């Protein structure tokens, strides 16, 4: 069995038709992980016993001829910022090194209810703060296409595991690009749904108004399938929207002819690598040949997206991460004698440099005397960015851009320059601020063979259209080769 070519779609058919058992499949995946993951380092925690138990349950159902759940036997990997009951969840941080959550994240629970089998928890930047996975307290992940390069971040482990074929699909989280950017770097599909489309219950909070859960998969159809089962209202998350979840699998089969595609000039300016530009423009041209109408649009406030993002995200993070105090769970410094010393030393020893840097920046932006100048100003800029998109979406059905300005960079290349690292998210942060859905789909590669992603942004709750367009891009590439 060639595990590398298995998709969600083909796996569930194979299990249903009993071409192999779910237990056998799970065992094969663990043997592949044992052989290949020591180099890639996509996984932080594995759960073979738990997975085998669940796989056998699927096989028992199949053996009796009982109806199988829709994702029966499909192996998935979960970014370690989502809590899993009884299974260690670290958020890539030393402060949660021994944290075994007492409940399940809704998105994970929904996947398991649909029959999917969790293989393990994937590596990520600490508290999802980073664009290269180098901020993990457990060491970096390397890009399966070139081991000297980063997989992107912060969902680097999830993207690398899908790309390396050590899982069939994965869940990631996206606060400023953390699903789409690693998807682009690793040559897989990454979908960030509309804010509110997927419950955030059980997602370890980074910036609550920006955090999203979404799938990383080998194909667009797989992303459509996974989204369908994790989406929808959840009583445990008041920001999860009460909006019907369509059958995305059917939606992607609709033709793209006649769709109006906005191309924003601000995303094709200075800083965009020439090779990335050429490949992305060719993908847009292909969509035009498929019958899409290309419309130049302007999103004039784009240059303010990164500054606004780093104020808002860090402000929310400084507040969210105040809970790590060494009292109820997580790391407690053994060196503290008083309560205030315990808070300080536990946080100091438990958090990594980038997390501390962001807590400091966020605390500053929220502090008295600076609140108006930074936090309030950034929130107003956020309104202007939202208006840019609202105006553009009067004229177009979706917007296409490069996902990233360059292909995957080298490990260590930006590790000492936080600002340069932040700019790796320059094309992705806006969608998080505005709450619209975005997908990165592979659209080509550089001459040395590094993947390049096309980003498609859609209207609120219109994941169907961006999935449909991404499906057309994928199909165009398949027929070209």
């Amino acid at each position, binding site marked *: 069995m060639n595990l590398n070519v298995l998709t969600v779609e083909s796996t569930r058919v194979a299990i249903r038709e009993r071409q192999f058992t779910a237990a056998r499949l799970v065992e094969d995946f663990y043997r592949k992980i044992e052989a290949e993951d020591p180099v890639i380092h996509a996984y932080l925690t594995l759960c073979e016993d738990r997975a085998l138990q669940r796989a056998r349950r699927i096989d028992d159902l199949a053996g009796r001829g009982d109806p199988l759940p829709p994702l029966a036997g499909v192996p998935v990997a979960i970014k370690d910022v989502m809590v899993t009951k009884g299974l260690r969840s670290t958020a890539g941080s030393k402060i949660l090194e021994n*944290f*075994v959550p*007492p*409940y399940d994240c809704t998105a994970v629970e929904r996947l398991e209810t649909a029959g999917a089998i969790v293989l393990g928890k994937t590596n990520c930047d600490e508290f999802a703060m980073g664009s290269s996975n180098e901020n993990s307290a457990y060491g970096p992940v390397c890009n399966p296409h070139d081991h000297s390069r980063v997989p992107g971040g912060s969902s680097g482990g999830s993207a690398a595991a899908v790309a390396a074929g050590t899982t069939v699909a994965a869940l990631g989280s996206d606060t400023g690009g953390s699903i789409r950017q690693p998807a682009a770097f690793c040559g897989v599909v990454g979908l960030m749904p509309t*804010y509110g489309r997927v419950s955030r219950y059980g997602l370890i909070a980074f910036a609550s108004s920006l955090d999203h859960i979404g799938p990383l998969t080998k194909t667009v159809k797989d992303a459509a399938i996974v989204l369908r089962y994790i989406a929808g*209202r*959840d*009583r445990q*998350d008041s*920001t999860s*929207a*009460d*909006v019907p979840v369509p059958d995305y699998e059917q939606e992607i089969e609709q033709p793209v002819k006649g769709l109006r595609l906005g191309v924003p000039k601000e995303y094709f300016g200075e800083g965009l690598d020439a090779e990335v530009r050429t490949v992305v423009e060719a993908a847009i041209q292909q969509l035009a040949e498929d019958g899409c109408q290309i419309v130049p649009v302007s999103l004039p406030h784009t240059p*303010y997206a990164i*500054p606004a993002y*780093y*104020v808002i995200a860090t402000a929310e993070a*400084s507040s969210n991460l105040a809970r790590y*105090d*060494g*009292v*109820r*769970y*997580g790391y407690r410094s053994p060196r*503290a004698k*008083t*309560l*205030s*010393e*315990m*808070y*300080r*030393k536990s946080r*100091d020893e438990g958090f990594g*440099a980038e997390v*501390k*840097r962001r*807590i*400091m*920046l966020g*605390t*500053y932006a929220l*502090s008295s005397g600076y609140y108006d100048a*930074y936090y*309030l100003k*950034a*929130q*107003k800029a*956020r*309104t*202007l960015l*939202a*208006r840019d998109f*609202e105006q553009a979406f009067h004229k177009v059905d979706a917007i296409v851009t490069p996902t990233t300005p360059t292909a995957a960079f080298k490990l260590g290349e930006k590790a000492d320059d*936080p*600002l340069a690292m*932040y700019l790796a998210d320059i094309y992705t942060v806006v969608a998080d601020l*505005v709450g619209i859905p975005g997908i990165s789909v592979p659209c080509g590669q550089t001459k040395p063979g590094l993947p390049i992603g096309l980003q498609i942004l859609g209207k*609120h*709750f219109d994941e169907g259209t961006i999935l449909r367009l991404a499906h057309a891009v994928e199909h165009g590439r398949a027929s070209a080769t």
Partner: protein
Amino acid sequence: MADLANLELTAEERVRFVKDLNSILEYIGRLNELNTDDVPPMAQVLSSYGAGGETIGDKFAYAQRDDIPRPCLEHEEALKNAPDSDGNFFKVPKVIEK
């Protein structure tokens, strides 16, 4: 600032962070180029963000539920991850310092 954030930071970290944060704040300063006099702040995607609201509006109703008591985490479960506990409460070092 480190005090406000309940962080200690080593001398090295302090030097490094001052340098990093100054360069980041300088970059963030470009927000001051924007005239935002009549622009309302946007805290949440789900609230009306002052952009006319037609693409937002009623689609974004908050998920609400009735206020009915439901079973919560068992006491024992809630204490399981505690660094220190007497089986009934979380234990911390003395709060009142001499």
